[in-house]
């Protein structure tokens, strides 16, 4: 039997309000593994289930309330058209870049260079590789029709996979300490100052990834009390 450490959970994710689970985009809610913040720097086994039960319920309730209180927003037909065009591109491309090959290469890059043990030189290399893969993903093409076409879905996923991989890599480079599941070979210790902020990634005006520090809110008093009692 082979036993080895593996990547099994993403602590980062969509930034949401802790009560309503609403993101910065009004009306867009996230709960569970795709939402950020609940588990701090490392999730403990079993906590994901309670997370999704509690915050899934909250997200549902607040989303329902939001839907009742807000009329449908205006949808720009131009935006729909351009999204549709984007989505259909993989069928029209003449190149023979296999979307699965790009996906598998990305998996290998992230596993090898931004995996369990991280270091600056490797992560810089990863950014380089991600850039190359972005170019390849723009050539990804698929056959067949639109129904149940997993190759097409993979081609569409690539954009998101590459964006998230870049955000993960840049954030990991930026956090010059080791904390929870984030382990840096070149900064093996915890840094007190770094424990006071979260790294928030936003899309810049030219589509680039921008990182910012957001202070971690102080622990509510009732929680603080429980922590003290358990000590």
């Amino acid at each position: 039997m082979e036993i080895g450490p593996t990547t099994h959970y993403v602590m980062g994710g969509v930034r949401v309000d802790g009560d309503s689970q609403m993101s910065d985009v009004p009306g867009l809610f996230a709960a569970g593994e795709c939402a950020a913040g609940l588990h701090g720097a490392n999730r403990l086994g079993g906590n994901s289930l309670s997370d999704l039960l509690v915050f899934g319920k909250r997200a549902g309730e607040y989303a329902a309330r939001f839907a009742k209180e807000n009329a449908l927003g205006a949808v720009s037909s131009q935006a729909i058209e351009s999204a549709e065009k984007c989505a259909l591109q993989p069928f029209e491309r003449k190149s023979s870049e296999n979307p699965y090959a790009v996906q598998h290469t990305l998996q290998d890059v992230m596993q090898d260079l931004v995996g369990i043990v991280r270091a600056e030189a490797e992560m810089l290399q990863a950014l380089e590789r991600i850039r190359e893969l972005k170019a390849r993903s723009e050539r990804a093409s698929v056959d067949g029709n639109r129904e149940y076409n997993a190759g097409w879905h993979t081609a569409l996923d690539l954009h998101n996979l590459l964006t998230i991989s870049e955000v993960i890599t840049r954030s990991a480079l930026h956090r010059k300490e080791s904390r929870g599941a984030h382990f840096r070979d070149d900064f093996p210790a915890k840094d007190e100052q770094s424990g006071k902020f979260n790294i928030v990634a936003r899309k810049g005006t030219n589509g680039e990834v921008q990182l910012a520090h957001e202070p971690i809110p102080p622990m509510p008093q009732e929680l603080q009390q429980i922590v003290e009692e358990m000590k």
Partner: protein
Amino acid sequence: MATATFRIWRGERGEGQFRDYTTETSEGMVVLDVVHQIQAEQANDLAVRWNCKAGKCGSCSAEINGMPKLMCMTRLNTLPLDKPVTVEPMKSFPHMRDLVTDVSWNYEVKKRIPKFQPRRPDAPDGTWRIAQEDVERVQEFRKCIECYLCQDVCHVLRDHHMHDKFIGPRFLVYAAALEMHPLDVADRIPELTKDFGIGLCNITKCCTKVCPENITITDNAIIPLKERVVDRFFDPLSKLFKVFGGSNT
């Protein structure tokens, strides 16, 4: 590295043909791994439904060498690899594409089965008291992952297409779990006899054989339900009792 050939059904809405794919295999692989590998390397648009890869979501049902199985739980070392391994969609449901079928009929059937209806609480605080023995009796039925492999193999659905008259083994299991639930007071016996068609099952036990959760479908769910139906509607003694019951009181 060893190679093996997989003969996979390709096509749409019932029309199609088998296509052979030869691919590398390695130790510990399951059929779903091979299907994914073929999809990634040779047939990007191959349609296949899956989710957990752990035998718990019931999505990856297919017929492997003619046997209804979960692709994610069928290891290659349980199959003869010296000849092509056939992989095809389930036959009892409308075909969509490649290995994917439309199983929504099952969801409609489920809606028709009267829901759980608990008796009044036993204690003033709104709680109930149940004997452990009664809890255990229905426990097995709750393991069902709704893979519908039992529905696929049952001849009443597969060969006789009696989807409008028979709910199939999966939903007889579901009905049994509710009927035998120690708190439930709803009565499903008249429906089981008429609309749900329990009489169409002739206890061939094929469903039990294919169940990946090893639920003893026929012996523990269907037969006890059949006994309840017989007791209610066909038992000569209780019929007599019904006839004379009135005048005796």
